[in-house]
């Protein structure tokens, strides 16, 4: 049996799980309703309390939809962040908070960080020689809310591959912009100190940077970033150009350690894992901190995983509460229908038919609610994705998957099971009593 199971494709396994969740109750339902043509009575029941029925359906749809939507959203967020972090093998920074550094270097969240000096740069450069490539990541400035990063042309290629437009920068006053930055190639702009809204007031008036290229879209916060040579950032702050010759028009490494103004972070890209681990253990110490953004992110995801579990439990609890409320409501509604049920029994309707009618009525409401819940989840996921993308610049491709379908199927199965209760209650009512009322 397990062998057969493992031979199935992933989709076939998921489909089998879905069938396993739903088929017992559908089979039970078929057994209960077999031989009856319940449609007119169901229509009557549905129309009789139309608004209440619609409210029940909406209640189920919203509770299922939000629960499922949040779970799908969380997964989408995880994949999106992991995808962005892939480009960042190893980050070396001044000792401090890894998560803050991860947010600043990978996700470009504004932060103040102490600088690594020229000696540190030199040590990293020597250690990496021949086995890894390094690039400074100097942030802190902005233009109209777009983060400015001082780095190298090699880093631009690493991030985006070919440029979508234009060429790489070759001078300190040139820049390459992310796909989402509203600057044309050839256009000039004046960078500002810092990244707060007040930054504009403190603009580097004396400096104009010209856009020479545009990167391809990466679906990351880097799409709204502007990258310029690190020399450009240093010069704007009056710190020189990091080279021995202050007039050197050349941009990019090597830099002269004694003239190196500093960088908050160094990105290290290695060819293989052992090199990465060797560099990490060498530079993770008292003078500097070295961390794998991917690993820090997994730790964060682990935390989010706990959150997800709490969320799942909460969503299950919500759904159980909604189910209980709807069941109670259905018992009350079918009570309002009890004279007509008694009439049917007086006409010779067997008990199984009364049971079948109330069960399928409840199942219908819950089923429609669950299916609409999927639609609500779909809408919620896309709305949340759009909102989060707008806020973080992350392209979140959250979508409903098998896991969500299974969850909805499980909810529905539970609902069909719970729907047996109003049916049983309806059966227990005394026929003559009901006829007299």
């Amino acid at each position, binding site marked *: 049996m397990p062998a057969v199971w493992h031979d199935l494709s992933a989709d076939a396994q998921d489909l089998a799980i879905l069938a396993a969740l739903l088929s017992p109750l559908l089979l039970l339902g078929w057994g209960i309703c077999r031989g009856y043509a319940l449609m007119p009575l169901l229509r009557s029941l549905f129309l*009789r309390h139309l608004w209440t029925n619609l409210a029940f359906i909406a209640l189920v749809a919203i509770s299922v939809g939000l629960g499922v939507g949040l779970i799908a959203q969380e997964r989408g967020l995880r994949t999106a962040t992991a995808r962005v972090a892939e480009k960042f093998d190893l980050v070396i920074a001044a000792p401090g908070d890894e998560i803050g550094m991860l947010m600043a270097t990978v996700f470009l969240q504004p932060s103040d960080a102490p600088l690594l000096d020229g000696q540190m740069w030199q040590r990293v450069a020597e250690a990496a020689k021949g086995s890894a490539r390094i690039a400074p990541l100097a942030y802190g400035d902005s233009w109209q809310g777009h983060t400015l990063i001082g780095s190298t042309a090699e880093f631009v290629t690493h991030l985006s591959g070919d440029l979508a437009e234009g060429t790489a920068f070759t001078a300190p006053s040139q820049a390459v912009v992310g796909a989402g930055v509203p600057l044309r190639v050839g256009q000039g702009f004046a960078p500002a100190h810092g990244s707060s809204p007040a930054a504009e007031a403190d603009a580097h008036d004396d400096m104009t940077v010209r856009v020479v290229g545009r990167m391809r879209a990466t679906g990351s916060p880097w799409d709204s970033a502007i990258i310029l040579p690190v020399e450009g950032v240093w010069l704007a702050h009056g710190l020189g150009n990091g080279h021995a010759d202050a007039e050197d028009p050349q941009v990019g490494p090597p830099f002269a350690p004694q003239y190196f103004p500093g960088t908050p972070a160094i990105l290290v890209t290695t060819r293989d894992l052992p090199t990465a681990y060797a560099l990490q253990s060498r530079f993770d110490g008292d003078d500097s901190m070295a961390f794998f953004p991917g690993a820090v992110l997994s730790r964060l995801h682990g935390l989010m995983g706990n959150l997800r579990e709490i969320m799942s439990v909460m969503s299950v609890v919500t759904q159980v509460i909604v189910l209980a409320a709807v069941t109670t409501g259905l018992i009350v509604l079918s009570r309002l229908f009890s004279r007509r049920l008694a009439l049917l029994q007086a006409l010779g309707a067997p008990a199984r038919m009364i049971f079948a009618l109330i069960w399928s009525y409840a199942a219908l409401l819950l089923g429609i609610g669950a299916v609409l819940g999927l639609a609500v989840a779909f809408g919620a996921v896309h709305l949340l994705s759009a909102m989060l993308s707008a806020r973080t610049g992350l392209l979140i491709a959250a979508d409903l998957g098998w896991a969500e379908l299974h969850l909805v199927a499980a909810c529905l199965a539970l609902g069909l099971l719970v729907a047996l209760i109003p049916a049983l209650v309806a059966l227990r009512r005394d026929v003559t009593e009901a006829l007299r009322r």
Partner: protein
Amino acid sequence: MSLPLSISGLTVRAGARALLTIEELALPACSLTCIRGPSGAGKTTALHALAGLLSGTGRLAWGDADLCRMSRMARTRFRGAQMGMVFQDFLLFEELTARENALISAVFRPDRAALSRRADALMERLGLSGLAQRRADRLSGGERQRVAVVRALAHDPAILLADEPTASLDRATADALIADLAALARAEGRSVVIASHDPQVWDAMDRVLTIRDGVLEAG
């Protein structure tokens, strides 16, 4: 095939209280019988007992079938096969059309084609053809009562039990309905028991029974 009724020593109780007592009663097959009595005397209770909706002690037999010795399920099956019932306040499904109401027992009866043929014929006979697609909540009282009659007779039962079928109708409509019920019963060989305090109904029946304080006696 109509069924004779024979009752002896029947008592129907609610708790300690005897709701209905019938010492001895025999009705031949195909008879039209009226049960009369003041309000609260037990007419509805008697009809429910005859339908097997209430269980009692003693003997209550339609033909060979003694309802007192049958399980609830067996009584329901017997009722479905042999009886039709009409209630004082119609009890139609307001959201459905006249025809859907007339055919409501098709929900659980397997012989749907025969049922709908008969229901259509009955609707025509009772002058309801033009109203077949009208929703029940748009029908007049007389029209509703006739739909209820078609519903009770669509499966051609051997027994018809009707509880005050003319109570909410005007004189002419009431007379027409009773005449129709009687004619149909005679034509199709059916036993009919009607509970009514309407003297016009008594006149149209073969026999009248009186119930007083839960005790049913002939005459």
